[in-house]
């Protein structure tokens, strides 16, 4: 997985996609078992999986390629879990510190729907940013094509995509506070 991450950081989309897929399986199993242990339903697990994937993505520049990947992912997963439990005011964030290997021990389970609605989330972004995400991330146009369609520069498209993903990540976290 570390090799996939390092390739992903260099811009290899296929490797990065494979990494996120594999991670999502581990994260799902991790959150299900933690939620059960905290006396919660497993239906919240998918929200947490998606939130963590977002966090992994928006903070991927903080991964130090000379270090192992697992402790880094585990720290993010645990951080998001504590946040989640705290925000939903359950058993005050009493998440024991275990071995980071635990997150990798669990098997992947099939993806399910989260309570988040991508279209509604996108609708909350400013128009320019939303269009950039729509073209580049959903319709898979190249940055050059998207720039031509929006009538702005390529670097502006890149900045808008970057901002948009960060904003989406923030919106998802806010959503849960309600």
């Amino acid at each position, binding site marked *: 997985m570390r090799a996939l991450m390092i390739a992903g950081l*260099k811009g290899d989309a296929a490797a990065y996609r494979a990494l996120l897929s594999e991670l999502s399986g581990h994260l799902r199993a991790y959150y299900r078992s933690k939620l059960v242990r905290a006396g919660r339903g497993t239906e919240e697990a998918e929200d947490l999986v998606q939130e963590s994937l977002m966090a992994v993505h928006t*903070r991927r520049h903080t*991964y130090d390629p000379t270090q192992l990947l697992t402790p880094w992912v*585990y720290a993010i997963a645990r951080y998001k879990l504590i946040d989640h439990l705290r925000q939903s005011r359950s058993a005050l964030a009493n998440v024991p510190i275990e071995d980071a290997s635990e997150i990798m021990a669990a098997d992947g389970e099939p993806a399910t729907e989260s309570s988040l609605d991508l279209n509604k989330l996108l609708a909350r972004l400013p128009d320019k940013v939303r269009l950039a995400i729509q073209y580049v991330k959903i319709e898979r146009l190249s940055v050059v094509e998207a720039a031509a369609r929006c009538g702005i520069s390529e670097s502006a498209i890149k900045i808008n995509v*970057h901002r948009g993903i960060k904003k989406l990540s923030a919106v998802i976290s806010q959503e849960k506070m309600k």
Partner: protein
Amino acid sequence: MNTEELIDLLSTNIEPVDAQKVVRNLGVAITAGLVLALLTCIVTLGIRPDLDNPGVFGFLLVKIGFGSVVAFVGWHFLLKHARPGGENQSRIFLTAAPFAALMVLAGVNLISVPASHWGHLIMGEDWLGCLLSIPIIAVVPFAVITWAVRMAAPTNLHTGALAGLVAGGISAAAYALHCPNDSVPFIALWYSGTIVLCTLLGAAFGPRLLHW
């Protein structure tokens, strides 16, 4: 939303990531913090006038050296702790080493003089200035460093203590330019004490400021 959908969204058309961003941001923040601390000290307190005296200058170097070593060691650990999961792999107790070394020097210094001088060596005339100035000068560096640390997404919110330690060390090195007291026991008590105070304040504000 299905997770597969999200993975598609995140992995489509990704850009290469700058792996040095965390290190560079922290470097910039600490350098900026040092410059701002020096400016604050020079503008508001002024540099002590007797620096051309070699003895005074030597002592200035000791004080600047102590603050710098504290900040440098803190920086080293901050680079690890600021990232997710970084807290697992460091020997954080080493941050206490510069303090211990200074305490030993102060002890040696005190043993070599009669006990009647101890009070003056430890308290000096300007302990209040030191007590107030170092934490106040540290505020701006702390803010800048916290900004950089937050971008590294720390998952251990005690990281705030390290940010406070580095800001305190920087501030002490800057305050040394003004500080009129030339006694090792004085530095051992008041410089260490105020840096520890900065560390505690950093620890207290850390969880709120560093949450991401």
